[in-house]
């Protein structure tokens, strides 16, 4: 034990979570220390490695805004848990319940009768001057008088060992999902210790959250069907529909949101997945609109409704405020709750607690002065050295300023800023927060860092319950005063010992009924299938583009202008069709003027078509593909995702001035990646309707390409070489195996059109397309798409090869044109029937 702690720093001005004042380990840490002392050093190394691996493999990430490279930052988790004994926890629990009740009462009053303003318990400037006070939300009524359903609070321990509240999170608290994932990982590396210490489980808390939201959701369902006879009441045993509303994949905690949604069994939806009709919120699914009863939101207040709140928001749901006002949907937390997430309120809480609850506030807030009060401002300016200045309202995005850090000039500037807009700032006393042991992977020993604890509470019909644990956040090494995940802090699992033996309950829900299976497909959102469809199209489109550019580069490298003169114009036309090369200029009569490009010109154009960031290059198409994949992350396997991630990253790397051979290498790698992805699609994805939309997208894209390719190629001079055509359609190997002769039109067209065994043949594409369209039509009523494709298939099969499969055959040209038009129409029809955001 002594070895482990040799370099453990003692800091007399801080509370130490691990050691007492006399340097003895506190009782609740002893089991952990004893275990570490008895085992071989390699054990901890393995644990740390296991933690790193699990975080990576689970794909736990924390996005950093405005940083495309940092989009995928792995979550940082310390291997040592933060342990609290149940005696101490009981005090925290009771204080947090009281605080949640208090904040809920304030919220109800401010958005209701406003007695606190009349009774001078709150200064009007704190409400009317607060950008977070949303007037359209005034008067929203809440079932059981609960507006604050999910609450988090940041705690820190002062040198005397007592806990203080640093900040309240009343809008859409983040981190509970990370706490859950931390638990899964850390409990797995200390299985024996976790059991021996009898650590309280987290699952009960999340069950309470789910059950409570569903409880109130059920009330909303009753209300909906009472007001509108067309909305059927929930049948016996039917669960209300609760969704988790996310701002989308670019939000910093998107990973956590998708994890929580999965854990709670709530569909993860974005604003445009929902629509409001007659004051009821509906989810747009493949099978039409489904009424939504409760929304757990991670979207900020004012972004929730472009109709009544921030008109610029594209993330929200128009009419959501009205739906809430009519009591047709439960929104957790209620719109406008951001108001309480203000440090300016802290100083008023003791008085408000006495007034509203008739009891003293159990846990104090860190001493906080709101500069909006003239006396407070004077005192803040006089004591700047001992204070940290923070924005009073979350809308003001400024970093905390430590008075002690400032030179005379910066200090004067700060004072000027405070005087200009005092109501926008608060000053907090600097607290030397406690330090806890962290594992130092380099030194293989226990080190110390400052920690803060985020604790969560949720409302239930029986009152508030507190998660027995939480998210312990660890300060970065550089500045022990700042704890933020935004700027690269670490986290810990939080262990609360249980007072008595509690039955083991797994975090993973083992009981999945057949109902759940039906649900997942029933709630396949329109947005999801649209993304899957385009994911399929772009996967194939990029494959075509990469192969086409490779063909073009080969022609350029292997043939002189004279030797490629017959085929080259067609290759170039295809590049123009994809927007990879500029079109020929036209004369005044609209006739193309054939441009004779030098080899150097063509080389520059082709390299640009691979790498340039402008529209219609391979790089930009791959980027677009990546963004589609990112929106589908919860449906893609880790391998799938890694492959796409690598593909997109390779375009951003190096090559200040790429050459033709760099481009070729890039094209080979991209092609390989896309072929691998196609394999995942075939082998690794469940055949549900989502997969069918993806496959339809792939096939429509392939059909369009084949039509255009053949129409152009058939117009080539008779002496044209057809090798490139087979190369481009990935059919050269098959052809050579069969014919070992110079390609001719009849066998080439047979292979590319009519060969039922060639996956690159049109007949194969049409067959699959008709099948998938038919399956979707069978579930969601037919729109005639499958029939249209089947008709083309019958025509194709009816061709007499000898008569039809040759250049200049009008029947073949007409059929190709008709097939191309049909592919466009089917795509548009799907768009109107299934993707259109207006709902149906």
């Amino acid at each position, binding site marked *: 034990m002594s070895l482990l702690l040799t370099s453990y720093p003692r800091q007399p001005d801080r509370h130490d979570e691990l050691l007492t004042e006399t340097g003895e380990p506190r009782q609740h840490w002893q089991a952990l220390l004893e275990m570490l002392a008895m085992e071989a050093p390699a054990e901890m190394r393995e644990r740390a490695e296991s933690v790193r691996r699990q975080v990576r493999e689970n794909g736990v990430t924390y996005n950093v805004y405005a940083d495309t490279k940092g989009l995928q930052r792995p979550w940082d988790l310390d291997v040592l848990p933060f342990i609290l004994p149940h005696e101490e926890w009981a005090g925290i629990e009771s204080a947090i319940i009281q605080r949640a009740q208090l904040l809920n009462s304030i919220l109800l009053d401010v958005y209701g009768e*406003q007695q606190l303003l009349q009774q001078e318990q709150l200064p*009007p400037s704190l409400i*009317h001057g607060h950008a977070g006070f949303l*007037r*359209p939300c005034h008067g929203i009524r809440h079932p059981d008088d609960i507006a604050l359903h999910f609450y988090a609070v940041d705690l820190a321990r002062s040198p005397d060992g007592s806990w203080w509240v640093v900040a309240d999170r009343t809008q859409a608290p983040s981190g509970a999902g990370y706490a859950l994932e931390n638990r899964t990982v850390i409990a797995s590396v200390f299985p024996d210790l976790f059991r021996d210490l009898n650590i309280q489980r987290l699952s009960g808390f999340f069950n309470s959250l789910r059950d409570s939201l569903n409880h109130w959701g059920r009330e909303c369902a009753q209300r909906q069907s009472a007001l509108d006879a067309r909305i059927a009441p929930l049948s016996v045993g039917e669960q209300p529909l609760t969704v988790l509303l996310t701002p989308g994949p670019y939000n910093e905690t998107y990973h956590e949101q998708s994890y929580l949604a999965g854990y709670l069994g709530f569909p993860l939806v974005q604003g445009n997945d929902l629509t409001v*009709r007659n004051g009821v919120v509906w989810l747009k699914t493949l099978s039409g609109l489904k009424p939504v009863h409760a929304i757990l939101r991670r979207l900020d207040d004012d972004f929730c409704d472009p*109709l009544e709140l921030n008109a610029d928001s594209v993330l929200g749901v*128009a009419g959501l405020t009205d739906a809430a006002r009519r009591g047709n949907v439960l929104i957790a937390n209620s719109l406008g709750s951001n108001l309480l997430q203000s440090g300016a309120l802290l100083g008023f809480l003791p008085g408000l607690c006495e007034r509203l609850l008739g009891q003293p506030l159990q846990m104090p807030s860190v001493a906080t002065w709101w500069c909006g009060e003239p006396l407070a401002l004077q005192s803040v300016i006089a004591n700047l050295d001992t204070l940290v200045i923070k924005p009073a309202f979350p809308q003001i995005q400024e970093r905390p300023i430590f008075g002690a850090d400032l030179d005379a000039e910066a200090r004067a500037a700060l004072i000027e800023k405070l005087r200009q807009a005092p109501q926008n700032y608060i000053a907090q006393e600097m607290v030397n927060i406690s330090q806890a042991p962290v594992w130092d992977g380099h030194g293989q020993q226990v080190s110390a860092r400052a920690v803060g604890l985020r604790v969560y509470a949720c409302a239930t019909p029986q009152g508030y319950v507190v998660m027995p644990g939480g998210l312990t956040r660890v300060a970065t090494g550089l500045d022990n005063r700042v704890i933020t995940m935004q700027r690269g802090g670490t986290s810990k699992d939080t262990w609360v010992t249980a007072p008595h033996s509690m039955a083991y309950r797994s975090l993973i829900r083992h009981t999945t009924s057949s109902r759940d299976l039906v649900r997942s497909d029933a709630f396949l959102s329109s947005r999801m299938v649209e993304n899957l469809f385009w994911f399929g199209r772009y996967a194939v489109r990029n494959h075509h583009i990469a192969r086409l550019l490779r063909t073009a580069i080969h022609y350029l490298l292997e043939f002189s202008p004279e030797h490629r003169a017959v085929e080259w114009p067609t290759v170039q036309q295809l590049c123009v069709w994809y927007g990879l090369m500029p079109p020929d200029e036209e004369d005044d009569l609209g006739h193309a003027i054939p441009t004779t490009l030098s080899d150097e010109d063509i080389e520059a154009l082709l390299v640009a078509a691979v790498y340039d960031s402008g529209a219609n290059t391979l790089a930009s198409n791959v980027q677009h593909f990546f963004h589609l994949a990112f929106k589908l992350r919860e449906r893609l396997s880790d391998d799938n995702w890694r492959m796409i991630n690598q593909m997109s990253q390779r375009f951003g790397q190096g090559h200040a001035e790429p050459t033709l051979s760099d481009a070729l290498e890039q094209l080979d790698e991209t092609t390989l990646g896309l072929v691998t992805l196609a394999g995942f699609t075939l082998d690794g994805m469940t055949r549900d309707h989502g997969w069918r939309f993806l496959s339809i997208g792939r096939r429509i894209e392939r059909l369009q390409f084949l039509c255009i390719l053949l129409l152009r190629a058939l117009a080539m001079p008779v002496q044209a070489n057809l090798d490139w055509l087979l190369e481009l359609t990935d059919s050269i190997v098959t052809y050579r195996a069969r014919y070992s002769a110079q390609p001719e039109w009849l066998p080439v067209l047979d292979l590319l059109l009519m060969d039922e065994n060639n996956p690159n043949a049109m007949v194969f594409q049409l067959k699959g397309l008709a099948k998938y369209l038919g399956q979707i039509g069978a579930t969601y009523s037919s729109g005639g798409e499958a029939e249209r494709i089947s008709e083309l298939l019958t025509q194709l099969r009816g061709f007499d090869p000898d008569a039809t499969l040759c250049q200049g055959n009008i029947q073949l040209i007409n059929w190709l044109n008709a097939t191309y038009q049909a592919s466009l129409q089917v795509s548009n029809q799907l768009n109107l029937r299934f993707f259109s955001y207006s*709902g149906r």
Partner: protein
Amino acid sequence: MTTLPSSKPTMPPLRYHVQHVTEYDYDHTVTLSQQLLHLTPRDSAYQQCLYHQIRISPAPSESAEHADFFGNQSRCFAIYAPHEALRVSAEFSVQLSARPTMDSLPASTPWTVLRDMLQEQASQHLEACAYLYGSPKVPCSPALADYASLAFTPDRPILDASLALTQQIYHDFEYDADATDVSTPLHEVLHNKRGVCQDFAHLMAGCLRSLGLACRYVSGYILTNRDAGQPALIGADASHAWVSVYCPQYGWVDFDPTNNCLVQHEHVTMAWGRDYTDVSPMRGVVLGGGGQRLKVSVTVTAIGDRAPAVQLPL
């Protein structure tokens, strides 16, 4: 955005008929339209609504009314049927009664005293507190307070100072419909000294609030200047905006900086709030549509005015 005649009509008619037509023409089909209207006139001590009707085409699939936080009647509606154009016509008539003139508003509270009252005895002036602070279109600033201080000399009665500020804005600023649009920030208006009634109302509200005084933004209509005997031109008018200043003795007193006057009986009040964003006549969200063209036409007629209305050529 219109200006009053320089000399007031001698016998002002007290009944007005207003028609406010908003037409959207879209490039592509709109598949869903959700709109929020503030097109219902408010009743007050000086104004009584005699008749009111809102007609919407195509017919809304749903429609509901509610009173907003500021007491304005707002209506939201939605159209689910695909459409390429939208027309909202609000038509109403009101009866106005005379408001006090400056002569009958003597010895109002010195503004500095009022400012301190609002700060120190806020709970007794809660209604005013809603209009005391910066808002989305009207941020408070030292520059605004500076500009106001020319009119707001120490201890000057609040209404005298407000009238002086009304005159100051009228003289310093040029009415210029091309200088600003709805997104022009207030500090730019202050700097360029140009704008329309909405800018001047925002500016005046910003000045008062920057001094710690309460001021509402009022939206409505005004009877326009017409040559005697000329028929009213349908659609030639526009919505108007002015401010209302809080004064404990007399309640809220309206000033029109665009027309350099204390509001009397040419102004028809629709709605009030902190700024334009709270009371815009029509805001909404449409799906589809692509590009859109907006046409707004407002006609204010004094009832009893014999001249027949003629349709403006489109």
